[in-house]
């Protein structure tokens, strides 16, 4: 028989950084879940993405057991990762946030494709580029559809 779901908890936690403090501690602790077990599992599962902000959805069952799903990082988080690759150039030292290329925008748009309705690469890229600019990132070069 399927276990009865007691509730869902949605958080964003850096890979490898779950610990029994807020918000993980109070959110899970209040439901009687063993927080230490969640932290051990989450941190082991995210070893390859240490330090990256990851959305996690935790299902808590009425018997105080739990499951969780780690989702793909939001486009904004991926943009910051992409901008970091360029760090070290003299130009990026003057910029507060940094810049990304259209190739990087395309890669992120393609990865996010399952989340977007009636997806076309070009419209996805425009959305991701819009997010980049709102965050203060420069998108370098000419969009592929203009070149």
């Amino acid at each position: 028989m399927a276990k009865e779901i007691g509730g869902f908890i949605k958080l964003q936690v850096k890979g490898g950084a779950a610990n029994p403090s807020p918000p993980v501690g109070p959110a899970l602790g209040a439901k009687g879940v063993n927080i230490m077990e969640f932290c051990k599992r989450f941190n082991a599962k995210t070893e390859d993405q240490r330090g990256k902000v990851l959305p996690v959805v935790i299902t808590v069952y009425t018997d105080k057991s739990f499951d969780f799903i780690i989702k793909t990082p939001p486009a904004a988080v991926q943009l910051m990762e992409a901008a970091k690759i360029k760090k070290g150039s003299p130009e990026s030292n003057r910029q507060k946030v940094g810049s990304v290329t259209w190739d990087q925008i395309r890669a992120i748009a393609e990865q996010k494709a399952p989340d977007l309705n009636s997806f076309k690469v070009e419209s996805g890229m425009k959305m991701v580029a819009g997010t980049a600019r709102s965050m203060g990132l420069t998108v370098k070069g000419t969009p592929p559809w203009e070149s």
Partner: protein
Amino acid sequence: MDYLKFEFQTNPENNEMLIALLGELPFESFEENDQGLNAYIQISHEIPEVNDRIIELKSLFDFSHRRIVIKYQNWNAVWESNFETIVVRDFCGIRADFHEPLKGISNEIIINPKMAFGTGHHETTWMMMSIMESFDFVGKDIFDFGCGTGILAILASQLGAKKIDALDIELPSYENTIENARINNIGNINSIHGTLEKVDNQVYDIILANINRHVILDSFSTLNKMLALNGILLISGILKEDEELVKNAAESNNFKIEKTEYRNNWICVKLTVNV
């Protein structure tokens, strides 16, 4: 450890971008809601850049924010107040002080966890204890790396170890190990708060390391030097999907793989040093 909660009141459309930009700082986790988001950081990690970045973000996004101190408390208290006892065959059993004594068990351990890891419920702790049954601890010097509640150090002591150094980077674990050793009437556990450098000039007969992949990978070469001749390193806290990676690293650090145990998705590996 006290924490800071930064409450941001903003259009939730900004949440994703604010989280990504704040994520560059030592914020550890975030919680979204209809009025915006909360960002959490250890109070000791509140570097000046945190305030600088928030001021900078105000030029990009429309939001108000406030800073709230969240005092340390045992968030795991509900689970800890009514957990069930657990046994590893008739070899050992774990209970809290509010349970009745266990019957028919060779080694009974009392653990009052206080937000430290290690009650035997988790696969990794269970496997570590299970394999420890086959080791000879009598008169040996032991190192418990990442001791949590001190459960493995206590078991080692009950099995006849001479002296146990139990190390943990987390203060609640250091304190909990002292408390649990006392509850179990054990006097030969030396609880140490800090990182591996605190003991890396010591030599041990058996090293118990139920931690995680990256600490174990980073520590292999040091742990190798800390093992006595014919010493044993027992590792866990590693998922089955990381088995090959960890074993390859062990072998390239001159360890020999003696035995691997599996329980659900977790592994526990017994290693010795190649002579």
